[in-house]
């Protein structure tokens, strides 16, 4: 069940435009934060926590780590959040306004970086908060309960290690959880809404029409 980033209420899958509980939608947030693009690289540090060398090292680590789970793109985001109470809705808004800088992810000029495959670890150094956010394509592969538990267990690492080491440790654990869930999902893909013949840039069978979402069928 989807969860609203603002009110944390679960809502039915058919709520395409707004949250049935709080009325949150991207359009309302656009009016609040503006309809501007946010440049986004693999390591986006808006607060200046990491040095350049640390950024490069973290970038290389994430590039190596994401090879285990293609086509997922791993990224780290250090946002500059002025109002911590609005962090969740602000990150929801930012995620949908990311303009991905391809060179930071890959040197292949022909490669297409799709935001739906982004798996971003956010760290707010002002309010000492961490969280994960991901695109639609990763919804079946992320076990929300396991991710929250893993973050809770990483509190000590976050408190005692520096930011780079903490991010490396947490991302390694997150990828391990992702792989576990991927194995489970791929054993029974139909149960998790995985269509083997959907035409996407990552599949080669272009003659098969994509399956229509269940929400559309119900509506």
């Amino acid at each position, binding site marked *: 069940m989807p969860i609203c980033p603002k009110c944390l209420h679960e809502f039915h899958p058919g709520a395409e435009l707004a949250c049935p509980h709080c009325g949150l939608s991207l359009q309302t947030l656009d009016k609040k934060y503006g309809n501007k693009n946010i440049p986004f690289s693999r390591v986006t540090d808006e607060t200046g926590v990491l040095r350049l060398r640390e950024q490069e090292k973290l970038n290389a680590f994430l590039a190596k780590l994401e090879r285990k*789970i293609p*086509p997922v793109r791993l990224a780290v985001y250090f946002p500059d959040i002025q109002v911590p109470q609005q962090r969740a809705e602000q*990150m929801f808004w930012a995620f949908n306004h990311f303009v991905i800088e391809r060179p930071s992810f890959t040197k292949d000029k022909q490669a297409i970086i799709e935001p739906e495959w*982004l798996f971003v670890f956010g760290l707010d150094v002002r309010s000492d908060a961490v*969280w994960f956010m991901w695109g639609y394509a990763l919804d079946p592969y992320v076990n929300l309960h396991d991710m929250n538990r893993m973050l809770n267990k990483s509190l000590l690492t*976050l408190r005692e290690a520096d930011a780079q080491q903490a991010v490396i440790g947490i991302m390694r654990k997150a990828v391990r959880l992702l792989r576990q869930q991927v194995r489970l999902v791929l054993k029974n893909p139909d149960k998790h809404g995985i269509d083997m013949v959907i035409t996407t840039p990552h599949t080669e069978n272009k003659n098969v029409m994509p399956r229509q979402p269940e929400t559309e069928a119900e509506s």
Partner: protein
Amino acid sequence: MIRPLLISLLCGSLSAAESQQAPSHAELPMLQWSKKDQKALMNGTWWDKSPSLLPEPETTPSEQVPVEHLPIIVNDDDAAVVPSVPEETSYVHEYFLPDYLRNVRGLIDPQRLLSETETNDVQELINAIKTHYGINLYVSIFAGGQRVPPMVNAPAIARQIFNANERNLLLHFHVGDLSAMQIVLDPGLDARLGNNGRRDLLYQIKQEAARFDNPQDVLLTAMAALVQRTQADLNVPVTQPITVLQSSAPVVPEVDIEIEQEEAEEKHSFSQTLKMWIGQLSQHVVMITGVVIAIVILPVSYMFYRNKRTLRLLPSVPDKRLGAPHGAAQSATIIYRK
């Protein structure tokens, strides 16, 4: 050769003495018959060494007979007076019993059942066997069908004459009666051959000796067969005599008598069983090490492959919500420092 001469000599002397007036038994001196006397008798000098036995100065020594210790059977018709030892074959006279147990040469024939030539041949063969095979071969001679008292049966003789630290064989031979032949092996040989082996050895010797009719040929063949087959069965080096068989155990020879011995079951304690297993496992150290390495390496390799291999995610149907084009999912926000 000696036996007929002795018989004729004794018969002639007895008949001559009977024709004259023989002294009574009370008048004759007590004789002590020994091997020395026997040897002197064989050489023809015994009469000269015993002049007191002559009843008359005119009588020749050949007409006198030492009758004190030789049993004499007197028939009713007074036709023949014959010493019982050479002729009587139904039993072994007690006079000869000690000589069966006192032997150092190999041939045990106190009854003089073999002629001198036969004795020499047998003794030469015994010496040759001792020289070439390192085996002390003893041959005890009895008359055919002669009843052997227990005192001088085969195991009793072997018990007395076998040397403790040497390899010994005894051939119990009845002249003209091959079926009564027995063999005795020293404890070492007997233990290696066992009861069945010993019986088979005796059977083969009898089979080989049965080809001949002459008692001397039978005896020599049996002797040779006993030694050769013993060597063949035991596969003992020919030129090296066995010097020590059982130094501490007493020499108890055995004959071909079937003795039922219950085979005691081998009882192994746990420590012995464990040691046996360890000994067997130590012979396969390489194989066990390989198995252990395989047991360790295979799971480790599988885990390594499982963690390193690439998992390609399949695209799913996007559940677009809240008007967001790319994604609207977030985990819980964790505050790590208060």
